[in-house]
């Protein structure tokens, strides 16, 4: 790698720390482990009251959105801090689907087309509609999602499961995140011209939503069937491909920060428990066989923090190196989160296997988010191409 790399800011600014303490306080008050556990099997698995405060009062849904569209004009760096705190609390809110995936895709659609490309920028008629949707997402008035399986990696081929014909959509997309509470969808589809992105407002004719019983009860997925659903085309051709990839890359990068927050909670919980749990006449955290495992998790979390920050900073500055750092984060942070959650459970012993203890929520979130937006293996395969280490 001969290209010199820009100096990346891997620390948290004062503003970012202030944002963190505001979000953490809110989540501690409104969405502690007991509250999340109680809600996860209820008729309202999403905490829309909490989401309203996060969006309408704190403007957290619009961090990625420029001020001209009603957003906060912040960046992925700030969104990453929010993602960390959401991971720490496994709060059931549609931040990933609406504020990250759908919002990033919309922003990419609205970005000025490069003059040299033979792409088709967002069609003028739809531009004002897109602006309106983006503003509504930024303020939290509306909620949207990107209709792809949650497991889709950033380098996936443009999905071919939905066909567009005469302004209506036909097809099926499984495991769409946060669709449960969305009132709009961005749908990748193929029409006569090739790949394109469409929007659909919900509820919509011919759109059937089948909620899935998810392993992670704090993050819902839904199977979507479209049978002649009227839709608006937003962009087509390379612009559509770019918008999808941009959204998935931002999603994968921010998921790493969520995984960091999750791993931090798991480590804290394990340390707190083993300090006060007595067996053999001493706190079990005094045994080296146990404390060394927590030290290893601490070292992993420490490296995950540097890696997640690097990905967020590169995404925020639009650095060419962002795809590499996102792939590193996707490969590294999800394994760290799974390891932290698995160790947390084991170090709790029997209580960790009970429904009553919230560690299973973190384990399920960690394991499913390892698969979300590209498995570690898939991210390593992306790196293999990006950094020129081919398999054969």
């Amino acid at each position, binding site marked *: 790698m001969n290209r010199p790399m820009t100096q990346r800011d891997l620390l948290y600014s004062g503003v970012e720390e202030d944002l963190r303490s505001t979000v953490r306080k809110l989540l501690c008050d409104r969405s502690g482990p007991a509250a999340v556990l109680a809600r996860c099997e209820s008729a309202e698995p999403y905490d829309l009251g909490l989401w309203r405060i996060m969006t309408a009062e704190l403007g957290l849904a619009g961090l990625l959105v420029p001020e001209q569209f009603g957003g906060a004009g912040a960046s992925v760096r700030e969104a990453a801090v929010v993602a960390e705190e959401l991971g720490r609390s496994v709060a059931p809110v549609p931040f990933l689907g609406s504020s990250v995936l759908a919002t990033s895709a919309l922003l990419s659609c609205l970005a000025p087309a490069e003059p040299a490309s033979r792409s088709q920028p967002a069609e003028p008629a739809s531009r004002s509609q897109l602006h309106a949707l983006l503003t509504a997402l930024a303020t939290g008035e509306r909620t949207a999602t990107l209709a792809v399986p949650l497991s889709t990696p950033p380098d996936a081929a443009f999905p071919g499961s939905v066909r567009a014909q005469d302004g209506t959509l036909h097809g099926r997309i499984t495991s769409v995140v946060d669709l449960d509470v969305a009132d709009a969808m961005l749908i990748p589809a193929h029409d006569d011209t090739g790949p394109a992105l469409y929007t659909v407002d919900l509820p919509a004719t011919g759109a059937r939503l089948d909620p899935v019983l998810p392993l992670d009860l704090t993050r819902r997925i839904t199977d979507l069937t479209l049978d002649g659903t009227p839709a608006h085309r937003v962009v087509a051709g390379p612009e559509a491909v770019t918008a999808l990839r941009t959204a998935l890359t931002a999603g994968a990068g921010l998921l790493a920060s969520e995984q960091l927050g999750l791993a931090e909670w798991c480590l804290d919980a394990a340390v707190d428990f083993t300090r006060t749990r007595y067996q053999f006449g001493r706190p079990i955290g005094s045994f080296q066989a146990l404390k060394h495992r927590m030290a290893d998790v601490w070292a992993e979390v420490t490296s995950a923090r540097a890696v997640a920050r690097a990905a967020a900073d590169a995404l925020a500055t639009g650095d060419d190196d962002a795809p590499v750092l996102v792939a590193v984060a996707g490969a590294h942070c999800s394994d760290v989160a799974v390891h932290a959650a698995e160790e947390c459970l084991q170090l709790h012993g029997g209580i960790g296997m009970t429904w009553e203890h919230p560690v299973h929520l973190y384990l399920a979130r960690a394991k499913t988010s390892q698969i979300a937006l590209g498995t570690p293996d898939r991210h390593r395969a992306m790196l293999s191409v990006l950094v020129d*280490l081919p398999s054969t």
Partner: protein
Amino acid sequence: MSGTVTADDLRSRVADLLAAHNPAEITRWEFLRARFDAGLAWVHYPVGLGGLDAPRALQQAVDEELAGAGAPDNNPRLNVIGLGMAGPTILRFGTPVQQQRLLRPLWTGEEIWCQLFSEPGAGSDLAALSTRAVRDGDCWVVDGQKVWTSLAHRARWALLVARTDPNVPKHDGLTYFVLDMEQPGVEVRPLRQITGEAEFNEVFLTGARIPDRARLGEVGEGWRVALTTLMNERVAIGGAAAPRESGVIGLVAHTWRERPELRSPGLHDRLLRLWVAAEGARLTAERSRQQLSVGNPGPEGSASKLAFATLNQTASGLEMELLGEEALRYDDWTTRRPVEADFLGRGPGYRYLRAKGNSIEGGTSEVLRNIIAERILRLPTEPRTDKDLPWKELPR
């Protein structure tokens, strides 16, 4: 302690230094001494001791400006113990007379330092060391054996911890000295290690003498002084961000790219995992550096040391398997005495063997995990049987 010195002040002081002492016209030592006297050696040190009471973060700009002007540096890699450990310890515990005598030649590199801490019977349990120092009038007489001493064969001075009272618990009976290495009671022997070379030494002390004025800190206070030395062990000497693919991963990636015939699916997966781990470790070290530069050293240093050991061991093992038959050969078994290990310049077999020391030297990975668990995570300590017994009654 940071005064009111600004980056602009330093720039003009650098200009004054260069104007008054043209590096092209004087010897290296003359220039370095002048730089020390101008307070531009280590700007965060006090005035008169090579510094200006300035913020540490300003040092890098001074170094760069002087390097840009073609001025010689003090070759910090040759005197790592002196600069990294002896300097801070003398600054904290030395008398004004000791500081005046020792710090200038230490910084310029005219006097090399080594550290006489570890012993055959005291590795991880350093406080159990048994080298004895017995008072004899104005002097101390020292007998014992030290081990794993880098630079001992070149050192003018040594940092020494010795037992001055065997009748109290081990941490309370130690005293810290500066030992003159150039005397008959000091014998330095190379210590050949598994790589064939001898980076380190054994040091035998037989009736070595130390004047009492070369004591650092009070009698019996040696453990506290030693902790200061050890805490400075991992503070980097300046340093810029390491580029991507630094270290063994760079060699392995290069071989992978240049030699397609060596590739296999299993090795490919391991290579990519290693690449991710190496990039993660690089970013962790970089984040640690950034925290230090804003005056907020984080605990990342311990994480970096732990990760670095594992990484080097994994990478050097993978490198051998990738190279296959070539890795059956070894480059050089002769007993060489390098100032520092030429880790990347030597062959893959050397790297494989040398990397095994990374999880032992400077604190084993197991001790490091205890430190992380107890000091950072605040987990309770193991019950101890050795803390309150007089040293001489400890089982050994």
